[in-house]
């Protein structure tokens, strides 16, 4: 079985860059292809969010298949909010059958936030259960209920950790638990409070986790003052320090400042021991990704056969 | 208010402490809500001498008042006087004669008059034989004007006479008629001649000119304008109430100086504390713990001084009267000596011819259980057989004797021990005492000490309306308050959390009770109990709330009606406010006074609307310091808020219901406030007052 591109780049030791694509609220294949074109070649893999913030969008797996058809390595996301274990396991089998390898496991934002607040939050599994279950499907060839898969599958299991959530003292331990559960790579929540991220990384290194799992640091380029404020006030689990807000506010060309800031952060992250790459989430601003990756000195991306 | 635990009544401590079991709690409460007439009615039902007791009663009720553990006892006696002077006397309903028997009472003092009143109300014909020219006994004969104006006594006596008691004055047993003669016409006789004789001490010099005895002196001072010769230095022997009266009367009779000595030390002196204080204020100089040794006279027999000897102790370890004298002696200059060391009965030896025996010491041979002398059908009561005591104590003996006489005439057995059984409550627990708001007792105004001893005017000025309203509010309504209806109580503990006084309580065994005896009757628990499982033992609060229906009906006859719930205490009890409610208010405004606005529940407000009210205002006062309760505004406000929420869901505008607190001025000038309510409601009825405003 072949590895995913993401896995190959990680194994090579090169600094990884992953991107993200938020599917539309429609069935417009063209839109996905358009963004795929933007990102293909400048990142090593592309995340497809799964009804992020509980807003109904084209399914992650479907979009993943579209990217597969474009020779782009997708990282599909599975939340525990919308599906029970039967649907999830079924979806995993389907994803692999469609050529998808990278699967990111998340709990999922509560439905209260989205455009279907009346929906039932399923949460049959939690994200930790999900990681372990996927590992067991791959390594033991067994479903959650105990039955065996008819044939083995190969997947590259990812998860998210948030250094900006509480209780802070516990976050590194939780990461260790995810490693124990079977995670292969980690992407973090977007970093703005570098200080806190560094403290978290220090703890991570202390526990030796950085040696067990590659950590991709999340970054988001700020597009406008409004965007910065929105992330500060309305997105749970995100910390945006006032200095950042002030910096954007003071800048004449806010977009340029946002890009500058993002590039600075990426360059800094490269220097932190244990950070294996960045996860660039330029959602609704995918077109800026090539510029950022270039200015951060991360082009060209390594190619493998 | 009585509670019957089984067949024995349970009185609040004030009522238990009163020998005639006056329902002090109830009349104090009536005063506190401005119903002075009702207060006087309650007093008169039980007390044959309201005016006298209101002025000079020894007030054992105050000694038992549980408020004393918090700050000071409620000033019950002065409140009684206030009711007497500000309420209307209830009409005297002449007693119906339902029995053929007649009873003779010898002696028209408090004991005799009480027996007479009670028996006449039981249907008997009663005649009181009084040897003085006026009935009243020691009160009439001896108590000085400055302590008790004559009108008081006369008022009380005339009401007893109006009831149907025949009072014959100027006739004396043993001189004008005999026992046998009485028993020809009367089927029972009650001896109530009291202790009209003053005792002296046979020390050297006690027969000198210028030595006087207390009671004759007091009588002279009261009725014959007795004045001392200029330069009289009076020395009073004695430490009891009579001695205080003698000393203070002596000051008013023009004595140059008045000094007093008694065996007892200052704290042991038997006189009431307040009597001693007032005497000292009037310039009487006292030497407690000094005993009279001899009266020093000059050659011509006039008194020059009093030799006194120090007293080390009065009572021995067995509490018997056994004075131990020390060595120190002193001579105090004086030229008049008045003995006020005790009273005794007159010489009763004339009674022995008629089968009425005396003891060796010349007092009646008396059976306290049957209340009879040795001659069947001849009873005795009052100080004559119970020894020196207060007027109210004498009255209570008279009351019991009336029962004894009735049993005798009904030919049924009587036992005085069983005639007056009752229980009362324990003291307040420490934890409750801590939580009750402290409010100082209001001192009863008296004339200034420097000038009042120059005349015989009544020393005590008494309470004005505001003082009486404030003082009466200090009553804690002992045991009138909350009790749990166990059957429907869900034991949810809401009352426990809400009560400021820790009355609902979980004991060490985990058992929940509402400790009714600790309750301050603030009513917060009743209002918040979700199961309606708490009620007050006394129904006055419910009764007040129930007035809403009729008041609203009446108001609705005059246009769109608005209900105002206001407090019934403090400024809301003043005459002017009551006048406003009765005469001055807009006729479509129903003003309902309730004992604390925190007792108005959400359902009551809804009920008002259900009965057709267009608006409901809940008006408490803002004088937090004066209110004896706690958290009233908070709870009233929250309840009204909830009512508003519910009414809004029914499409009724917020402005129709409001909780507000009024300043003292606003209550006293209520008309504009009332107009304000109506203006608000009119505005609503014309389309305003909704959410968009």
């Amino acid at each position: 079985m072949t590895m995913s591109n993401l896995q190959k780049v990680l194994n090579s030791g090169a600094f990884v860059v992953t991107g993200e694509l938020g599917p539309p609220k429609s069935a417009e294949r063209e839109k996905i292809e358009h963004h795929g074109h933007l990102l293909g070649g400048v990142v090593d893999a592309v995340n497809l969010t799964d009804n992020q913030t509980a807003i109904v969008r084209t399914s992650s797996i479907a979009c993943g298949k579209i990217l597969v058809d474009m020779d782009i390595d997708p990282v599909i996301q599975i939340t525990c909010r919308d599906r029970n274990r039967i649907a999830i396991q079924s979806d995993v089998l389907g994803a692999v059958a469609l050529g998808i390898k990278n699967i990111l496991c998340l709990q999922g934002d509560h439905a209260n936030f989205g455009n279907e607040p009346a929906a039932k939050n399923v949460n049959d599994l939690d994200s930790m259960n999900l990681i372990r279950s996927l590992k067991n499907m791959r390594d033991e060839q067994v479903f959650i209920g105990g039955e065996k898969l008819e044939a083995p599958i190969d997947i590259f299991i990812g998860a998210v950790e948030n250094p900006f959530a509480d209780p802070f003292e516990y976050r590194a331990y939780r990461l260790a638990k995810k490693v124990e559960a079977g995670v292969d790579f980690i992407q973090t929540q977007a970093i703005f409070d570098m200080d806190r991220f560094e403290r978290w990384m220090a703890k991570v290194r202390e526990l030796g986790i950085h040696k067990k799992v590659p950590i991709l640091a999340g970054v988001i380029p700020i597009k406008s003052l409004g965007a910065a404020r929105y992330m500060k006030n309305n997105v749970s689990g995100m910390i945006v320090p006032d200095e950042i807000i002030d910096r954007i506010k003071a800048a004449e060309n806010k977009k340029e400042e946002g890009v500058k800031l993002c590039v600075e952060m990426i360059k800094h992250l490269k220097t932190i021991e244990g950070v294996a790459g960045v996860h660039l989430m330029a959602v609704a601003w995918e077109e800026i990704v090539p510029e950022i990756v270039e200015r951060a000195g991360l082009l060209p991306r390594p190619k493998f056969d | 208010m009585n509670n019957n635990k089984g067949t024995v009544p349970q009185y609040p401590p004030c009522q238990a402490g009163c020998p005639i079991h006056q329902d002090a709690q109830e009349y104090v409460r009536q005063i506190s809500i401005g119903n002075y007439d009702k207060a006087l009615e309650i007093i008169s039902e039980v007390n044959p001498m309201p005016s006298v007791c209101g002025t000079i009663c020894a007030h054992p009720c105050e000694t038992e008042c549980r408020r004393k553990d918090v700050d000071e006892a409620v000033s019950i006696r002065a409140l009684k006087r206030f009711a007497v002077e500000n309420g209307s006397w209830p009409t005297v309903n002449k007693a119906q004669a339902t029995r053929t028997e007649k009873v003779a009472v010898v002696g028209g003092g408090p004991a005799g008059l009480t027996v007479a009143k009670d028996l006449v109300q039981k249907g008997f014909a009663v005649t009181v034989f009084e040897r003085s020219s006026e009935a009243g006994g020691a009160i009439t004969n001896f108590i000085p004007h400055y302590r008790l104006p004559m009108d008081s006594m006369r008022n009380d006596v005339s009401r007893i006479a109006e009831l149907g008691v025949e009072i014959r004055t100027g006739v004396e047993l043993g001189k004008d008629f005999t026992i046998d003669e009485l028993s020809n016409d009367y089927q029972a006789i009650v001896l109530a001649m009291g202790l009209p004789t003053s005792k002296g001490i046979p020390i050297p010099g006690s027969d000198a000119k210028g030595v006087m005895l207390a009671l004759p002196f007091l009588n002279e001072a009261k009725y014959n304008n007795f004045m001392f010769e200029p330069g009289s230095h009076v020395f009073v022997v004695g430490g009891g109430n009579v001695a205080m009266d003698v000393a203070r009367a002596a000051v008013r009779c023009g004595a140059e100086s008045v000094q007093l000595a008694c065996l007892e030390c200052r704290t042991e002196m038997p006189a009431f504390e307040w009597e001693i204080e007032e005497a000292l204020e009037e310039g009487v100089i006292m030497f407690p713990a000094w005993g009279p040794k001899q009266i020093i006279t000059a050659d011509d027999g006039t008194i020059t001084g009093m030799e006194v000897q120090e007293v080390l102790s009065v009572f021995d370890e067995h509490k018997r009267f056994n004075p131990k004298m020390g060595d120190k002696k002193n001579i105090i200059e004086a030229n008049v000596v008045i003995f006020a060391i005790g009273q005794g009965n007159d010489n009763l030896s004339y009674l022995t011819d008629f089968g009425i025996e005396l003891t060796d010491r010349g007092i009646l041979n008396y059976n306290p259980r049957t209340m009879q002398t040795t001659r069947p059908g001849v009873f005795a009561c009052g100080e004559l057989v119970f020894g020196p005591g207060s007027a109210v104590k004498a009255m209570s003996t008279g009351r019991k004797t009336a029962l004894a006489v009735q049993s005798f005439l009904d030919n049924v057995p009587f036992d005085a021990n069983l005639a007056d059984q009752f229980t009362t409550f324990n003291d307040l627990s420490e934890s409750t005492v801590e939580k009750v708001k402290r409010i100082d007792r209001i001192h009863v105004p008296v004339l200034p000490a420097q000038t009042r001893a120059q005349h015989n005017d009544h020393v005590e000025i008494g309470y004005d309306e505001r003082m009486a309203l404030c003082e009466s509010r200090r009553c804690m309504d002992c045991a009138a308050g909350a009790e749990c209806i166990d059957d429907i109580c869900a034991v949810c503990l809401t009352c426990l959390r809400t009560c400021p006084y820790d009355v609902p309580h979980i004991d060490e065994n985990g058992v929940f009770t509402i400790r009714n005896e600790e309750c301050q009757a603030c009513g917060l628990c009743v209002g918040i109990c979700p199961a309606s499982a708490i009620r007050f033992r006394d129904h006055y609060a419910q009764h007040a709330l129930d007035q809403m229906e009729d008041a609203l009906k009446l108001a609705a006859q005059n246009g769109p009606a608005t209900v105002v719930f206001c407090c019934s205490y403090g400024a809301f009890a003043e005459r002017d406010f009551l006048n406003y409610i009765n005469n001055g208010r807009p006729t479509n405004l129903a003003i309902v006074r309730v004992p604390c606005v925190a007792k108005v529940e959400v359902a009551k407000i809804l009920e008002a609307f259900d009965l057709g009210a267009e608006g409901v205002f809940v008006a408490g006062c803002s004088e937090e310091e004066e209110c004896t309760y706690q958290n009233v505004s908070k709870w009233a406000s929250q309840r009204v808020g909830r009512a508003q929420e519910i009414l809004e869901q029914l499409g009724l505008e917020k402005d129709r219901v409001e909780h507000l607190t009024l300043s003292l001025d606003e209550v006293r000038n209520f008309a504009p406030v009332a107009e304000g309510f109506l203006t608000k409601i009119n505005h609503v009825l014309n389309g305003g007052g909704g959410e968009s405003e």
Partner: protein
Amino acid sequence: MIVGERKPLQEIIKAVEPFEKILVLGCGECVTVCMAGGDKEAKETALAISVARKRAGKPVEVKSHTIERQCEFEYLEAGRKLIEDADVIVSLACGVGVQTMNMHYEDMRTLPGINTTFMGMPFQQGVWVENCLGCGNCVLEETMGICPIARCSKSMLNGPCGGSQDGKCEVSKETDCGWHLIVERLMKFDKLSALEEVKPPKDWSTSHSGGPRKMIREDVKL
């Protein structure tokens, strides 16, 4: 205890519109304690209906009464006369009581007057919080007495999620993050290592997910 809240009055008033004799029935147990449907609320609800109907020009007879426990047939039986005298019952009991009423008085219309919400406790007077979901397999021992199913918005067994901030859940700043509380409590007793174990997926078949449940004690059956 079971907690509920009275339905908006307009909803109740609309539901009883076609009826002429209404009985509001309170319950003396849980809904009394959480002040949704006890005697007080029954009286208030009856008065509210009466006021609304009077003002709408369609006065109606409304009575109120409280039954010790509306989920017991015998207690319901005791109120038969009053109940059968009415056209419709507005029950302020929890959903259990309303259904028991419908079981016992099959021919009566008993409508729900409250929305039953959760199993919880009075955290302070006037504030009731949910803390049990009746999952049928209690794991409180593992989480030091704080339920991850009920107190975590996502019922995680291996929480907290990434949305926990300052001890509060991402759903609302008024909601404590259950897992934050669990972690703190474990840290207090120095038992944080208990979280190292990856808890397997929950067996939901013991919860309502497995179908409506029954509890039987054979030894007390008549």
